[in-house]
């Protein structure tokens, strides 16, 4: 091979340009420069201070909210009990022992006059008017005790039953003089006891604030959130993938993008109206009456309505997350012969997942706290038992709080605050789960 024509690199430094001389070096130590440096340091310090102040302010608001809620609501988790002496043999109730083990036990006990017997026992123990001291649902506690151990029907017992709302309030120092006198009397007799109870988390809605619980609403929230997630997440993520990866960039897709952005800003009550019209409305089509698709107040309807509401949020966050995946990954995957679906699901989606999950967290948190659209579709009713399935009537935590805040009895005030605490804990738990999942995805790949 003859010598290559490719030139070698030149050696030696370049000579200075014939035209100008070298520029004089900057003097960085002049007074003007020093002043610039001091101003810059000052600006940096001020900026750091403002940032810290902003964070502290937000933290202060959050702390204020939490402390107020806990202070108001922790008493909702306590209960005053009255020790009720009850003499079963002397009460004259006729109960067939065999029936107590069957599902008809409740009817049998109700039919045998258990409620009146309990009231009578209270009157005997505490004097005339004594039945006012115990809660109306106190007899249910006795009923459960009998079902658990039928042998107590042969004995005299002293059973702790929930006190009535008036006594409960008087114990906290909020009631009329008569109630407070009663409380003093009972406390002297050693009949009152207060303790922390978690029944608030197991019981459902009730008209008696002493017996009320959050479980019905909590289960309703869980079911509704499940439906919302199962519908909004796949549809939202797939829409985002299609719009980012497959859809051609033309006027129609621009229109879709603008529409989705606007939908994310629509007030939630509009979605309630939409849900009411679509899922609970009935139309006359070709002479045939299309009735409501779903029963009113069902968790399924609530979940569908909320899914419509948060889908735009998920789509926007997912699109941004997918857009942020570097094209080099896509090129690499395409280069070894991955099909478009494989590129998306094996490479793009796992890398975009943290961003997608963030958007989902935001959407779900918003859905959890929504009240207005659910009121329109009827999830605002008094329901004594928790929902059995997705089509049973249900209510959700924020609506339950709203309903209790309107109750006549004053005992509901602290129950409302206690319910707010439960809602906040639920929210934290949901966020915590989502953040855990996001971190898991981030480190895995």
């Amino acid at each position, binding site marked *: 091979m003859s010598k290559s024509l490719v030139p070698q690199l030149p050696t030696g430094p370049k000579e200075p340009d014939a035209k100008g001389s070298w520029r004089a070096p900057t003097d960085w130590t002049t007074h003007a420069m020093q002043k610039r440096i001091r101003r810059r340091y000052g600006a940096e310090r001020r900026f750091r201070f403002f940032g810290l102040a902003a964070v502290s302010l937000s933290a202060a608001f959050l702390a204020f909210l939490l402390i107020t809620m806990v202070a108001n609501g922790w008493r909702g988790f306590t209960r005053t009990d009255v020790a009720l002496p009850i003499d079963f043999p002397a009460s004259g109730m006729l109960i067939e022992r065999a029936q107590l083990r069957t*599902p*008809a*036990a*409740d*009817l049998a*006990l*109700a039919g045998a006059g258990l409620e009146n017997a309990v009231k009578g026992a209270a009157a005997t123990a505490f004097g005339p008017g004594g039945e006012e001291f115990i809660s*109306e*649902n106190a007899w*249910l506690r006795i009923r459960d005790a009998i079902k658990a151990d039928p042998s107590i029907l042969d004995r005299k017992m002293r059973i702790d039953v929930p006190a009535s709302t008036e006594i409960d309030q008087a114990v906290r120092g909020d*009631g*009329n003089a008569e109630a407070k006198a009663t409380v003093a009397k009972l406390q002297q007799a050693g009949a009152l006891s207060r303790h922390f109870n978690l029944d608030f988390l197991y019981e459902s809605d*009730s*008209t*008696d604030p002493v017996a009320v619980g959050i479980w019905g609403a909590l289960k309703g929230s869980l079911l509704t959130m499940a439906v919302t997630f*199962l*519908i909004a997440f*796949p549809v939202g993520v797939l829409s985002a993938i299609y719009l980012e990866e497959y859809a051609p960039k033309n006027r129609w897709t621009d229109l879709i993008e603008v529409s989705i952005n606007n939908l994310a800003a629509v007030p939630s009550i509009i979605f309630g109206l939409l849900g009411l019209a679509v899922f*609970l409305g*009935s139309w006359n089509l070709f002479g045939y009456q299309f*009735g*409501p*698709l*779903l*029963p*009113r*107040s*069902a968790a*399924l309807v609530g979940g569908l309505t909320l899914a419509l509401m948060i889908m735009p949020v998920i789509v926007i966050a997912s699109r941004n997350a997918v857009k942020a995946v570097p094209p080099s990954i896509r090129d690499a995957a395409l280069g070894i012969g991955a099909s478009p*679906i*494989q590129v998306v*699901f*094996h490479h793009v989606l796992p890398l975009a997942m943290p961003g997608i999950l963030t958007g989902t967290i935001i959407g779900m948190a918003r859905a959890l706290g929504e009240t207005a659209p659910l009121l329109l579709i*009827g999830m*605002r*009713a*008094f*329901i*004594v*038992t928790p929902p059995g*399935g*997705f*089509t049973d*009537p249900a209510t959700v935590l924020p609506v339950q709080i709203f*309903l209790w*805040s*309107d*109750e*006549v*009895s*004053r005992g509901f005030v602290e129950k409302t605050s206690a319910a707010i605490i439960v809602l906040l804990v639920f929210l934290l738990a949901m966020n915590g789960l989502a953040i855990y999942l996001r971190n898991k995805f981030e480190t895995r790949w």
Partner: protein
Amino acid sequence: MLRRTTRGIAGVRDIFGRLGLIAAAAFTLAGCDSNTAREIRVVGSSTVYPFTTAVAETFVNQGGGRRAPVVESIGTGAGLKRFCEGVGWEFPDIANASRRIKKSEYQLCQANGVGEIMEVQIGVDGVALAEANNGPRLRLSKQDVYLALAANPLGKPNAARTWRDVNPSLPAIPIQVMGPPSTSGTRDALVELVMEPGCAAADPQANALKAAKDAAPYDTRCKRIRDDGPYIDKGENDNLIVQGLAANPNALGVFGYSYLEENIDRLHGVPIEGVTPTYATIADGTYPGARPLFLYVKKRHLRAVPGLADFLTLYTTMWNPKGKLTQRGLIAAPDALRAKSAQIVAQRAALDPAGLH
């Protein structure tokens, strides 16, 4: 020979398949459940709501695996409208009402094929005007209330700003009355029981206008409540009114007697025509704001909804003067009226629309 060993795609397809099955199952079940037996559904008045919910709770606690009735509080007017939308599984069985059903509402029911309905009076309630215990201790007549709250008393826009403007014997404190919105039966009762008689007393033309064919002038003069400030619409939440009174002792509040009774340590009732709202005065009707409370029931649903008849029977046992509902603030109807209502339930007697207006 070349087997697909791809994992990811199969996994995703799997998930979609399962989701699809769940969705299909849910929708099928939804359609299934709704056409077979369902729980009792009640809508309507927020005044009757505490009583119906108490009965619903007792109904479930009696055992037997009964499905919990669903009780919604949306106001008497809205409740009767929904009640009269039709007959079938998606429509309510019972309407709570804090006033009698209107003729127009009854006609709407018939137009939508509801058929015969039962009217059951469950008790009495009083529309109470209340003030805080450290308030000005006003004593008002119906005419006073009319002149203070009407939008167009005697045909002219309302210029009264203090109670003295209305009646020289009253103190010169600004008129501030917090009350429910126009969807509330309590407000309807205030208008019917206090404002209209007050209008009849103050306005010589009132009776003639009422008898006229066009109801609009009468409504404008006698029934409309002012919206220029003195009457404050506090929404359906009566607890807000109670709180508002504690904060502003010079104000009056309008709500049902049960809220007054619950807060009797902080508030007291304002006497109207010299009669203070108490259990006794409302029960015997001497208090002008006394009004009956009703349930309206669709006879056609009695067969279709299991437990509906039992629910009504349970209601009749709870509304006695010594019954559970009284403890919640219900004022029992007079004995004869109660007996008649119980008979209506037992015999499923239908409402005669002749007496409605």
